[in-house]
């Protein structure tokens, strides 16, 4: 399979502290790729770099069409086809749920298009079907302000879905969800991965075991191991990083 995203020698530092240190890896097309690691391993920072929130000190991130996303601004990266969901659900509370979806569904997001064009029938159909999938169709005229935490997460994933990215970046999508909701999210992930590659940062090991095709273990900003879950689980270094930390914390 071809990589859709290649990360080469990426280093990100905050005031001298290297949150990501000379990291190289790649994301395959149609893959569900998990980044795991103890707190402070640089997982979220890595996502931030891919979606343009932070600029790396060195290295690059190459999208499959050849452009280097570290040189682009956030909205240009979205236009390339990289969508991001944040850890804390964030949707627009001042407009209705439908309008939230509408803003995500349009393909041309220029001022001109926002002034003079309407959604196509196809886009509307897509919004409708996604709203049905995430169970918010009946509520589409309400603003999301009063939705529950879980519903907001779903709405945000729904917005990503209608956005139709080629790569979807998810930051702890099941944090704060119960077992059942987590399973449902896992199912949704598999469904999504038929259309695009998914990059997930997650702590929930069970969830990782269930869904992951590829797992990358980060430790202190550097790559520790990469492969399928089975292989990674057996790596003594990985066990040490996880357990070692656990022991120190306990003492």
């Amino acid at each position: 399979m071809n990589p859709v995203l290649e990360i080469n020698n990426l280093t990100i530092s905050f005031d001298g502290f290297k949150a990501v240190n000379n990291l190289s890896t790649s994301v395959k097309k149609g893959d569900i790729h998990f980044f795991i690691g103890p707190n402070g391993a640089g997982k979220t920072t890595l996502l931030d770099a891919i979606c343009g929130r932070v600029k790396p000190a060195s290295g690059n991130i190459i999208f499959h069409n050849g452009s280097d996303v570290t040189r682009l601004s956030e909205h240009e990266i979205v236009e390339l086809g990289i969508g991001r969901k944040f850890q804390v659900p964030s949707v627009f509370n001042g407009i209705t749920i439908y309008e939230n979806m509408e803003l995500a569904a349009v393909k041309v997001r220029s001022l001109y298009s926002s002034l003079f064009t309407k959604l196509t029938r196809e886009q509307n159909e897509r919004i409708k079907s996604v709203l049905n999938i995430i169970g918010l169709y009946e509520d589409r005229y309400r603003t999301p302000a009063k939705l529950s935490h879980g519903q907001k997460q779903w709405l945000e994933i729904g917005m990503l879905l209608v956005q139709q990215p080629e790569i979807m970046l998810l930051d702890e999508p099941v944090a704060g969800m119960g077992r059942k909701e987590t399973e449902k999210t896992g199912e949704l992930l598999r469904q999504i991965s038929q259309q695009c590659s998914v990059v997930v940062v997650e702590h929930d090991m069970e969830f990782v075991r269930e869904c992951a095709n590829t797992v990358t273990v980060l430790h202190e900003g550097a790559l520790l191991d990469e492969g399928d879950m089975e292989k990674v689980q057996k790596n003594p270094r990985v066990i040490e990083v996880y357990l070692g930390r656990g022991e120190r914390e306990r003492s």
Partner: protein
Amino acid sequence: MSTYLLQIFNGISVSSILMLAALGLAITFGLMKIINMAHGELIMIGAYVTYMIQNVFIQYMDKSVFDLYYIAALPCAFVVAALVGYLLEITIIKRLYGRPLDSLLATWGVSLILQQMARSIFGAPNVDVRSPVWLDGGLVLGDVQLPYKRLFIIGLVILSIAGVYIFLYRTAYGRRIRAVMQNRPMAQSIGINTRKVDSVTFSIGAGLAGIAGCALTLLGSIGPTLGTNYIVDTFMVVVLGGVGRIVGTVAGAGAIGVGNTTFEFFTNASLGKVLVFLMVIIFLQWKPQGFFTINSRALDE
């Protein structure tokens, strides 16, 4: 040579006033994220307190101790302004945390009310405060004379900054304040009374404005709109310096004060102001968050 020396001194002097005015803002804005547009009026209150203390000394005290009124006025200005600040906090400001733009508008309303009150009490015309004799004259350095008043203000600023620094970073209560401002829920859960810390912090910021007002009486007559003249420059200091660090305030005030006097020296007063504004805009192109900032991970603050 001496012209330049004087120029530099004037720059530092203007900066020191700005620093004193901005120091209180650095606390209310930098720590509490409250845009207190009534800060200028707290400065005005400090100035009028000085005026009143002076009148008390003239009326009830012996002439020989008149010059000491200023020493009495400084703490009084601090206390009265802090008290007004405290009242503001518990009535209005407490409802505005987390809404910086709204806090700006509401406190602007407060500033209108305070100005009108000053007008009703003291009259619209400016009043003069006679500065103490021991601040007349100046330090002669070669062929330039550095007025004692301005030297005194510079000293006062240094003392205030040192005081604020020690209070915030070296005392238990200062630690508590910083804890609340950095992580409110956490501070609450370890048993800090955050409401009380809020009021106290805001009062201290207000009190510093009072000291600034007291200092301003040395430089000219005072009136109800005294604060308005300083408020925007003061906020520019905070914008330029960045929020959350005292050193930013010092740097911002230094840059604007020296910039103002330098540009005015080479052009004229009105063009000087325009040039300073342009410099600030240009500077922000390079460092949009000011000289010093604290990074945050939150998506939208």
